[in-house]
């Protein structure tokens, strides 16, 4: 008898994924950071999720798409043309592993639709997105901790897409220390803030080239000769549409005074 499949729809960055769980225990037990999508909206893609590798290999018929490997934690693929994908979870913390795979699927969808993922926290304040970016350890989570007036849409990854003539941002929620927000986007972008830890708090505007270079350097794992030109064009256009700053900050909330001051003077 063929096992029952449980379906759950989730959304992020304006896309909906229909998750088909082949393991009913996993479907009932796993908690994902992405909001559920209600209604009968056509999904952007259907993702089959297995925990039994043998069953997965028997069902898997990949003719198009790309393999997505999770360093021994999962093996999967995503076929953007045919809007389908699959993954087998190979053990460990299934919540984190599945969330990791799904984030990569959302990243591929975003990249295919005039957008990109930025290694940055997305804080929503007065309906606008403040994106704090930097390398691991730059202080993204610290900035979130000192932002009580903000909804933390994500403390690590932000999706940015061009819709019409403007760019919009979505936080890509992560499992971790901050609660999963009800609203994670889309929001207009108040600014991009490159984080620098410094005892002296200050802020200054940076050129489009500096901003594009800084954000490009954060994409190191995705830098390939094939996609780099497209990404550079996108980042240059993005820097032309949203103000970019370098923010020197320390572990308190005073950086928000600097942000408010410079935003008020522009």
């Amino acid at each position: 008898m063929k096992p029952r499949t449980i379906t759950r729809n989730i959304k992020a960055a304006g896309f909906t994924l229909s998750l088909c769980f082949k393991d009913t225990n996993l479907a009932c037990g796993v908690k994902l950071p992405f909001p559920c999508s209600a209604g009968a909206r056509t999904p952007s893609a259907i993702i089959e999720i297995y925990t039994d590798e043998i069953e997965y290999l028997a069902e898997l018929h990949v003719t198009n798409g790309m393999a997505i490997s999770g360093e021994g934690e999962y093996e999967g693929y995503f076929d953007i043309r045919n809007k389908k994908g699959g993954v087998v979870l190979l053990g460990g913390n299934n919540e984190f592993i599945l969330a990791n795979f799904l984030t990569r699927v959302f990243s591929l969808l975003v990249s295919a639709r005039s957008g990109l993922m930025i290694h940055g926290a997305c804080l929503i304040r007065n309906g606008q997105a403040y994106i704090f970016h930097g390398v691991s350890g730059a202080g993204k989570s610290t900035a979130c901790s000192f932002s009580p007036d903000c909804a933390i849409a994500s403390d690590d990854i932000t999706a940015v897409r061009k819709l019409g003539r403007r760019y919009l941002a979505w936080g890509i929620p992560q499992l971790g220390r901050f609660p999963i927000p009800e609203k994670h986007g889309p929001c207009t972008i108040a600014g991009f803030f490159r984080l620098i830890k410094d005892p002296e708090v200050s802020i200054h505007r940076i050129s489009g080239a500096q901003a594009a270079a800084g954000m490009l350097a954060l994409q190191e794992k995705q830098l390939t000769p094939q996609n780099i030109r497209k990404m550079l064009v996108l980042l240059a256009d993005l820097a032309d549409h949203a103000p970019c700053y370098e923010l020197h900050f320390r572990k308190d909330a005073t950086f928000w005074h600097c942000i408010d001051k410079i935003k008020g003077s522009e």
Partner: protein
Amino acid sequence: MKQSAGTVFSRSENTVYRMVDGEAVIVEPLYGLVNVINEIGSRIWELLDGKRSAGRIAEIIASEYEVHPQVAMDDTLQFLSEMSEKKLLKIER
């Protein structure tokens, strides 16, 4: 190899660049390097066509930016030397 006024450079085939508000963002994917070049450096970068010598480029810079020819020559050679060290240029001859 020591750069001189007669040296002819071209951009490395691997590099990708784009001008953003008068500044060049240059990327070397193999080494994961991302560089931002100032206005004059960006102009030198644009003039690198694999045909012009360093001396000819310096003459153009001196003319366009109204600087002393020797200052333009020194700055151009220094810029080309730094770009070479970063593997962003190759010497044609």
